[in-house]
């Protein structure tokens, strides 16, 4: 196999809340340009893994390497400057700000005005709905639109690696479909993505590779298509016998 060079490497990463070990030493590799998903049931430790990567929850042991650099425990606001951007669970848009102001906030770390304007136009092309509503406050958007805004806002920081935490959460099925289409479009534009999802079927369908997480450990990993056909995955996550 000629794997792409790795961008993100989790080496025996363990994260704990006090005595409770939520992530028990997992190994995950995301190659440059890949869309990799981390799937699992509620409470499997997916979001905790993300918190470990972003330095919002202290890492118990193991390391996080990004583009060859050890970033274990580095504060998330520093990671943004390195091109590692997270879209938090529950979207976290700035409800009182307009859509355009939200997107502008995404470019906080940048000062190249021309580049920002260019990216803004690009994101509006990707999400025409956001352009229509650019003067509206983000709080008035539907859940799906807020998710698109959150992804668009993250794109404004010109990420190299995007971490998406449960983008389908709380959305209507039709909207989930749309969100995944945009995730795929973002990936095609050259951004590496680590996607954390409960919706295993959709996540595996858009990803190139996948990891299955269960009570803090990786139980299965491999090609996304192969995982979709795997009887264990089908039984546990896809609702098929």
């Amino acid at each position, binding site marked *: 196999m000629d794997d792409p060079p790795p961008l993100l490497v989790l080496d025996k990463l363990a994260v704990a809340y006090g005595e409770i070990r939520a992530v028990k030493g997992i190994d995950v590799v995301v190659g440059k340009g890949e869309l990799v998903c981390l799937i699992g049931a509620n409470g499997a430790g997916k979001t905790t893994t993300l918190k470990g990567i972003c330095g919002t929850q202290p890492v118990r042991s193991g390391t996080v390497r990004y583009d060859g650099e050890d970033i274990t425990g580095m504060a998330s606001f520093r990671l943004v400057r390195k091109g590692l951007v997270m879209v938090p669970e529950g979207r976290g848009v700035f409800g009182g*700000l307009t859509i355009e102001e939200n997107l502008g906030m995404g470019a906080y770390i940048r000062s190249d005005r021309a580049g920002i304007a260019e990216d803004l136009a690009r994101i509006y092309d990707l999400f025409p709905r956001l352009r229509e509503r650019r003067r509206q406050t983000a709080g008035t958007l539907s859940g799906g639109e807020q998710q698109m805004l959150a992804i668009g806002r993250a794109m404004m920081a010109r990420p190299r690696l995007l971490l998406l935490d449960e983008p389908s959460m709380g959305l209507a099925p039709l909207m989930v479909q749309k969100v995944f289409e945009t995730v795929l479009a973002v990936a095609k534009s050259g951004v590496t993505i680590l996607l954390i999802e409960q919706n295993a079927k959709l996540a595996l369908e858009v990803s190139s590779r996948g990891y299955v997480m269960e009570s803090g450990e990786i139980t299965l990993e491999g090609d996304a298509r192969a995982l979709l056909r795997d009887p264990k995955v089908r039984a546990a996550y896809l609702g098929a016998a």
Partner: protein
Amino acid sequence: MTALLNLNRRRDPRLAWAGLAVMAIALLVLPFALAGIGTAWVRITNLAILYCFLALGLNIVVGFAGLLDLGYIAFYAVGAYVYALLASPHFNVHLPFWVILPIGAAFACLFGVLLGTPTLKLRGDYLAIVTLGFGEIIRIFLNNLSQPVNITNGAQGVYMIDPFRIGSFSFAKPEVIAGLSFSGPVKYYYILLAFLVASIVINLRLQDSRIGRAWEAIREDEVAARAMGINTRNMKLLAFAMGASFGGIAGGMFSAIQGFISPESFILVESIMVLSMVVLGGMGNVFGVVLGALLLSYIPEVLRYTVGPVQRAMFGRTLIDPEVIRMLLFGFALVLMMLFRPAGIWPSALRKRELESKAA
């Protein structure tokens, strides 16, 4: 005010400049007009400007960064005591005011960081309680630091504090300049006005800066702000420090104008008063905050002089002691204003939207 609004929106610059010029002249003539009614009104105006200054400082913390601070008056107290101790017979130190004011600001700033550091992870109600406690701690320290070494002179306070003085020109003494007689309060009025204008400009510039945008993001959603690459810890500390510095400078001016301070001046009610000015005027909007401070400073004073005569005119005699009914009417006015203008009298555009989107 319409002129100012126009300036804000850059609609017609010529009209805006004309409006600004008219306002400037009005403000320059104001103390003489007020002195005609009575010198007391010049003093009241000076205090009102000090409150504007304080409210603007608190607005940085509460309005811009969204951190609820119920102990803000502590920084005012720190600034006031720094001035009092460095310019009075208490330690027999008499430094000039332009040396002490920066020292007071720096001290208050230090206390701001002292309060900010342990409360970085607190929000809303929890932060409010800690800041409230902080305000009380400072006041109680001032009240008791007379033993074993007498630093603050305890509850008696510090007196005979030096006025502002440049060479032999004292701001406390009446003087005739170019045929016009300037009383002490009138002189102070001009220096206070200059400070206020400077602080308004600083606040407006801050709001439009990168720092202002970072505060805006933090107020909206701290986790998301961090995901934007904003160093939320430093930005919150900066808000506390800057707000506190404003409080410190105001405190120094207060000391000099009054000539006497005691812990009594820095009680919790004062913190609440300044917070009310910010909330009532329009959190986050610099002009709204100034308006709130002016209203809340003047209304009680106006009531003080009108409640008695109005009663006599209506009933032929004074039924209720003006002192009693004054605060009742004041409280009633606050309740009404908040009911009908929940975002403040002159809200910031953003704050208005926030309230609307939350109601939706």
